[in-house]
């Protein structure tokens, strides 16, 4: 036990009923947090901004434990994984935890839950906090039982001394509170001793979901709840010239019609009434409309013809050596994609009589979005309170934040009454911030054996990350207010290492003698865009892993063999081999329009890695691709919850197969045309293949975060398998039947 943690009862406060120790060691510089494990390095940020232990964990006299976290549940089991981590390091059963997540007034600010980095960073912070709380309690127990700290053992909060003497966490904290800073000096339980981490602990939220109990924001029914709708303009930049609100105001149940600049909304007593009134307002509104969109079918040319900010993301050309014997080139295209959350975004907002607007939201970024909403409303930050409640899966920055802002605006018109606002499907499809379209050109000089000497990779794209931050202009309704918030602040750079954004995974992990990656970043957004699963990674991996296949086949080498030949990293090799073996790559026999495809990548070059092997069947008559079976093999470091990890990996795979086979946001020069599931179809039950997921566990290695480990591999593996099946190379996404047919017909 570290000496710095010695405490005395002197400092105890006895008013709040949980343990506070008025004892404080400043967290100070990162050098004080001299953790041995890399996994903890990321914890520093979250801990430094929230250093008090009781901001995270409160042990209660009634045998429960409050866990407060700033990260939120997005349908990936994140909250359950945090619970595993907390329970593991506290030595209590997971059922004792009462979890509050993403409450801007009551849970520690951990920024945004995104980018698959939620676990690595926050997991580290929680390990520190839970270990320190446990140690503090053991110190108390040692004193009370009159035994040495080192002789104590803990089982579900019951502390036992060497001669069987016992006390419990709950007895120790009776009438006490634990209010002290993390020190960073308490030893942390190591993986050999784990009992919960690494186990397939069932998700805490699933039973209620299945049983029809309150789970989602959409299930909340606060007393006196009203229903709001917003009338979106016909186009992005339309201006509201005139609207006669009389007819809508006279409709049954209508409480308020709200007009502010070009923002138009309605609050009514019932959902049907709000929808009907919004339709009436839509009819009555006169808009000035622009027509300046590039059209989806012209997007590739548009991207290649815009003025771009050019930067080298890797600039290691070969200095000398032989001329390549051959140069091979290719060009790939990814259209705009939707998040396409199954449930449209929603929020409930209430303005109370102290001027505080409280918003229940499924935003990924409650803390910065609360600030943006305060800015939009023109109030102090402490007048906006966001509370995270689960919503439909978001896969990035969808319209959750916009919904929170819309509901907050509508709520201002009916003080004291909660306003529920859920978008129509058409509004969600047409107004969500899409994943950017991209063009990638690849060029390789190869030697006489077909191995890569020079690899050139050029990426063209518009922005990928336009989360609200604290900026009101990035909330959709704020752009239409009078005066409008119009400084969206499109970044003038495409993002650098280690995460990048347009160039995420543009740098391949293969050892090429010459390797140059150039980013052509277009700081414009003809369609509204923001973070969508993997940002640039999907298209970059699709292109790189398709191109590797093209090079392998040109060299006459097996594509798995070819990848291994260019790959030095042992963990990557293990992944590739595991996928190939489990799939039965070497013994595969295709034929009859069936083929196999392979792809590998390590997300962001430093997060989890996944290889994919899959089989397709192509119907040459109608051009339909059927994915028959898929094997994934992934290494995400030390696994917290294997079942949760498999669920995430398979979910990502299937969504990426859907992008690959079907999805493209269509638009003409005025508006988005993909406004429902018929005009933007996604993969259905009959089309989802059999999937086998292999996990490579690395106990003691940092957890790597895996929500997006499998992105572009799915696209490339399908393209490669289609080539194997019918000999046509698909380079423009999506691989719709008509495109495949055209390719087959040549």
């Amino acid at each position, binding site marked *: 036990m570290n000496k710095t943690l010695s405490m005395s009862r002197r400092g105890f406060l006895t008013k709040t009923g949980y343990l506070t120790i008025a004892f404080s060691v400043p967290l100070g510089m990162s050098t004080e947090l001299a953790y041995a494990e890399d996994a903890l390095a990321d914890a520093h940020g979250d801990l430094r901004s929230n250093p008090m232990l009781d901001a995270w964990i409160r042990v209660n006299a009634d045998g429960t434990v409050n866990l407060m976290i700033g990260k939120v549940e997005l349908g990936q089991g994140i909250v359950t994984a945090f619970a595993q981590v907390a329970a593991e390091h506290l030595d209590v059963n997971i059922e004792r935890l009462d979890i509050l997540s993403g409450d801007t007034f009551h849970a520690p600010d951990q920024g945004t839950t995104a980018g698959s980095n939620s676990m690595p960073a926050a997991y580290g912070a929680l390990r520190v906090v839970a270990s320190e709380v446990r140690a503090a309690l053991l110190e108390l127990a040692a004193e009370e039982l009159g035994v040495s700290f080192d002789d104590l053992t803990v089982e579900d909060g019951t502390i036992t001394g060497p001669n069987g003497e016992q006390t419990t966490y709950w007895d120790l904290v009776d009438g006490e509170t634990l209010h002290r800073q993390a020190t960073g000096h308490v030893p942390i339980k190591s993986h050999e001793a784990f009992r919960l981490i690494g186990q397939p602990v069932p998700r805490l939220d699933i039973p209620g979901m*299945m049983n029809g109990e309150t789970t*989602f924001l*959409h299930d909340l029914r606060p007393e006196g709840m009203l229903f709001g709708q917003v009338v979106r303009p016909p186009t992005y930049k339309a201006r509201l010239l005139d609207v006669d609100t009389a007819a809508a105001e006279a409709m049954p149940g209508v409480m308020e019609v709200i007009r502010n600049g070009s923002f138009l909304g309605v609050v009514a007593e*019932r959902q049907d009434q709000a929808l009907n009134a919004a339709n009436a307002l839509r009819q009555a509104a006169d808009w000035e409309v622009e027509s300046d969109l590039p059209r989806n079918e012209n997007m590739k040319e548009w991207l290649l013809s815009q003025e771009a900010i050019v930067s080298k993301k890797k600039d290691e050309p070969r200095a000398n050596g032989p001329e390549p014997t051959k140069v091979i080139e290719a060009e790939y295209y990814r259209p705009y994609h939707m998040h396409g959350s*199954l449930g449209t975004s929603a929020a409930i907002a209430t303005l109370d009589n102290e001027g505080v607007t409280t918003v229940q939201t499924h935003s990924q970024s409650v803390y910065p979005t609360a600030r943006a909403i305060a800015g939009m409303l023109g109030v102090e930050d402490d007048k906006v309170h966001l509370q995270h409640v689960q919503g*439909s899966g978001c896969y990035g920055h969808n319209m959750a934040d916009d919904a929170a802002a819309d509901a907050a605006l509508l709520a201002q018109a009916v003080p004291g009454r909660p306003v529920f606002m859920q978008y129509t499907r058409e509004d969600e499809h047409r107004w969500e911030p899409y994943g950017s379209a991209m063009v990638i050109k690849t060029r390789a000089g190869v030697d006489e054996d077909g191995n890569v000497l020079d690899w050139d990779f050029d990426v063209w794209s518009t922005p990928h990350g336009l989360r609200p931050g604290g900026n009101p202009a990035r909330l959709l309704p704020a752009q239409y207010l009078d005066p409008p918030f119009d400084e969206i602040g499109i970044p003038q750079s495409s993002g650098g290492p280690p995460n990048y954004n347009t160039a995420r995974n543009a740098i391949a992990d293969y050892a090429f003698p010459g390797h140059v990656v150039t980013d052509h970043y277009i700081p414009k957004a003809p369609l509204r865009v923001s973070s969508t699963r993997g940002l640039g990674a999907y298209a970059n991996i699709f292109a790189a892993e398709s191109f590797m296949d093209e090079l392998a086949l040109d060299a006459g080498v097996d594509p798995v063999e070819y990848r291994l030949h260019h790959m030095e990293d042992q963990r990557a090799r293990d992944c590739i081999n595991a996928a190939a073996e489990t799939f039965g790559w070497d013994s595969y026999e295709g034929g009859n329009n069936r083929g196999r495809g392979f792809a590998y990548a390590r997300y962001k070059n430093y997060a989890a890695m996944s290889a994919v092997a899959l089989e397709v069947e192509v119907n040459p008559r109608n051009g339909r691709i059927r994915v028959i079976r898929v094997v994934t093999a992934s290494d995400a470091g030390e696994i917290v919850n294997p079942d949760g990890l498999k669920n995430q990996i398979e979910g*990502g795979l299937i969504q990426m197969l859907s992008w690959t086979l079907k999805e493209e946001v269509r638009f003409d020069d005025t508006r988005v045309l993909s406004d429902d599931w018929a005009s933007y179809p996604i993969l259905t*039950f009959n089309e989802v293949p059999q999937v086998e997921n292999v996990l490579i566990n690395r106990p003691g290695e940092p957890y790597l975060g895996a929500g997006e480990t499998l992105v572009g591999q799915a696209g490339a593996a399908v393209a490669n398998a289609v080539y194997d099946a019918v000999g046509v190379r698909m380079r423009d996404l999506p691989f719709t039947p008509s495109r495949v047919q055209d390719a087959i017909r040549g």
Partner: protein
Amino acid sequence: MGEKSVVAFRLNGEDVDLDVPSDSTLLYVLAYDANALGPKYGCGKSQCGSCTVLIDGDPVRSCDVRVSAASGRHVTTLAGLRETDGTPGPLQRAMIAEQAAQCGFCTSGAIMQAQALLDRNPNPTESEVRSALNEILCRCGTQNRIVRAVLRAAEEM
């Protein structure tokens, strides 16, 4: 919005009488007047299935019909599949056992649609399950787990 009128139906075995506008959408009446927590709005036009409930045992997209469609009939939502003590029923238990959700937004519709299948065909094949669920969309990619859960429920029921 039309005149108010009393709509009477049975919801999960209990009589409900509601004074609601007669042209109300069934989904909103179930969700906001009868306080049923299963069915969800996803598209409002019979494209996604997340609003699915059973009316006299048949799966119905409640977003796309008026409340009168339920009048005098038996409506079942997730709560109606529970055991009498309120714990999850067989299909719900199988969904929990397979951890057949990510965000879970499609769950209610998928369970109701699958229950209708199992009521008709207690021993479906895997491809019958997939076909029965083909009009239920899941954006999270949880389809295979849901199929396994339905097959598991069939085995255990």
